[in-house]
């Protein structure tokens, strides 16, 4: 509550653009006229923040065409490195207990709450209204808390003990699918990103995520939050870059088990559905969703990236 009041009282001081925008520095914040330290937005692979191995970048502009910053333009090689990291992390992450994963996801919520202002600034600087930005970040934090609670409960909802017609103990349980590729929504750049990452990882999967191309800032700042929340390296990997360049690698890579595509491009969807057959990826098309709505959070989204395993054992002496 305290933080909230503080932000409200400084409402007039919230800059229209990001603080590291050199030509648009906010005089009201930088009263001392000092030269600001600019943040380099990089990508997030295996718990580290490298630049794209390709050395490429793209200019991020706001809605008025002002140059905000440069983003890493991730390459196929970056994507493949991220898949290696994600694959390596699957075993130990999925071995964690639901309780432990729940604690870590709750920790993400805590970290985000304390860094809320930064996320709001970033959304505002990318052209989202102040009110919508505040709503989006608040909803994101609440959604993290919502999902943290599911980490040790969805298993009970989706498991069964099966009354087979013979003397066997037989039960079915959900298990993570493995490495999930996520093409995050272009709109809803922050809440959409979180709403797709969290249900995947809370179920023991790891992921490689392509952030919104036009609004990528919060995705990379979210990586910083993840890194300080005891999310092990490799569990979430976040790339920035061009969907057109990277999506076929997401859908075609033989060590990716599932792909989530959240944008509305029928030609792209068809291309993914064809390419993903190479290793029978699970394909989840989540287009035209209002990620701010309460309906967009539910345990069935967790189930999307679970496989049901059935185990039989004889009963006897």
């Amino acid at each position, binding site marked *: 509550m305290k933080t909230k009041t503080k932000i409200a009282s400084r409402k007039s001081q919230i800059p229209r653009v990001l603080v590291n925008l050199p030509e648009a520095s906010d005089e009201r914040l930088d009263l001392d006229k000092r030269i600001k330290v600019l943040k380099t937005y990089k990508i997030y692979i295996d718990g580290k923040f490298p630049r794209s191995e390709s050395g490429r970048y793209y200019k991020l502009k706001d809605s008025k065409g002002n140059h905000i910053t440069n983003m890493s333009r991730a390459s196929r090689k970056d994507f493949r490195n991220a898949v290696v990291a994600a694959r390596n992390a699957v075993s130990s992450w999925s071995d964690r207990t639901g309780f432990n994963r729940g604690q870590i996801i709750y920790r993400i919520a805590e970290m985000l709450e304390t860094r809320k202002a930064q996320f709001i600034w970033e959304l505002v600087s990318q052209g989202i209204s102040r009110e919508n930005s505040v709503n989006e970040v608040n909803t994101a934090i609440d959604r993290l808390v919502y999902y943290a609670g599911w980490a040790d409960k969805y298993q009970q909802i989706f498991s069964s003990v099966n009354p087979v017609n013979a003397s066997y103990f037989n039960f079915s349980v959900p298990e993570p699918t493995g490495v999930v590729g996520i093409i995050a929504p272009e709109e809803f750049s922050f809440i959409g990103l979180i709403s797709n990452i969290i249900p995947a990882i809370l179920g023991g999967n790891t992921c490689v995520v392509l952030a919104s191309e036009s609004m990528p800032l919060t995705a990379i700042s979210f990586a910083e939050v993840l890194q300080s929340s005891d999310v092990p390296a490799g569990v979430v990997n976040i790339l920035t870059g061009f969907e057109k360049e990277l999506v076929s690698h997401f859908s075609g890579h033989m060590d990716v088990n599932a792909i989530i595509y959240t944008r509305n491009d029928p030609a792209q969807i068809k291309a993914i559905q064809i390419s993903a057959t190479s290793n029978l990826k699970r394909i989840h098309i989540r287009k035209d969703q209002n990620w701010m709505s309460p309906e967009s959070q539910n345990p069935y989204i967790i189930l999307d990236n679970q496989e*049901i395993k059935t185990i039989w054992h004889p009963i006897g002496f």
Partner: protein
Amino acid sequence: MPKVNTLNFNTDWQYAEAPESSDHVQLESRYGHFINGKFVAPANGRYFKTINPANEAKLADIASGSAADVDKAVRAAKKGYKTWSRTPAKERAKYVYRIARMLQERSREFAVIESMDGGKPIRESKNIDIPLAAAHFFYYAGWADKLDYAFPNRRASSIGVAGQIIPWNFPLLMAAWKIAPAIATGNTVVLKPAETTPLTALMLAKVIQESGLPDGVVNIITGAGKTGSAIVNHPGIQKIAFTGSTEVGKIIQKAIAGTNKRYTLELGGKAANIIFEDAAIDQAVEGIINGIFFNQGHVCCAGSRLFIQESVADLVIRKLKDRMETLIVGDPLDKNTDIGAINSKDQLDKIKYYLKIGVNEGAEMYQPSCRIPQKGYWCRPTLFLNCAQSHRIVQEEIFGPVLAVQTFRTVDEGIEKANNTPYGLSGGVWTDKGSKIFKVSSKLRAGVIWANTYNKFDPSSPFGGYKESGMGREGGLHGLMPYLELN
């Protein structure tokens, strides 16, 4: 190596023949498609023959389905859907129960025809295929009016017309796996049985006709791959359910890309059966035998890769060879038969091709000395010893009575080798240590794990694959999901 008693096979003892009579079986000489509650001739007038793989004799002529036939069936299913989806759930249930009971009533006839058309031992069709098929209808009948309890906080509704394509290894059972959950949940169906084993599906059509199930709810079209692709590509179909090879599964997935068709795929496998040194070895050997030689190895979840912990490898292999020596290969209708006929000449050629590959790759082939009949399609039960992970007989699905044997030292090594495959349908674990069962079962990347047992099936038990073995589950509560829209 511990001392083992050796078995003496060198005796004059023979099993007396114990053939199941087939005189009560009534087969027609020619079968049409089952569309809109009636048997109809194919639009192009073409038929193909289905034969008995044990003696290559023709059993009947079967309608060859064209796109026109499929279109007719889909229209019937669409029309049927209008009333069927609005029929009160408890009334739908009663029809499905009826089908279950009528199948039980005729189980003997179904079993004999199943063995004649597909080559499987009568013992299996009688004790497993037919009772399980009936049980599937019985199980899903009961779900029809209880769907509101299945998925918390969701309203379940039917989808529409389901196109279902099934394989030749469990012809009637697969038809039951597909049709029962689909119609119990209010969908209608166009089903295509495999071209080598269409008879029991057509007999099921007769049962359905007699049950009074409204016209168009279940339509059965016979034919080969082309007929299947006409079903897959028909715009009037909302859902595809396919059981068959991974190769064809991928073709189907590609074919429906860009459409809104939903799909479930139950595809190939290369299951690992892992025997630990602390297992009950005799039981494990029985489990291995059942795992790979059940239904001539024509089982997607067959335990076709055997991993034996090194310390007991010699013992297990010796007992395995002894047990194989006692297997009887021959007349599917003989109750003594353990291994029946290979389903078709094509499949026999494929198996022989892999036997050659195995030998050429350097694995050591072992077959018992059993006699096999002159006529028909037969394959002796086969072991390959000294296999490497890279061998094609270890990596690829053979779908025959061929077991690739490897060894391992540590538990981790066993798990890693077992998971080194694109498939993930099933697996077996043999040990007397409970905690090891749970650890290994949870580490195996496969949808069904049998611990200290193998190849068990039940309508209430979800079945389906990880990785390239497919997606979606059949059986149990989870098997309802592919046929429901959840809102």
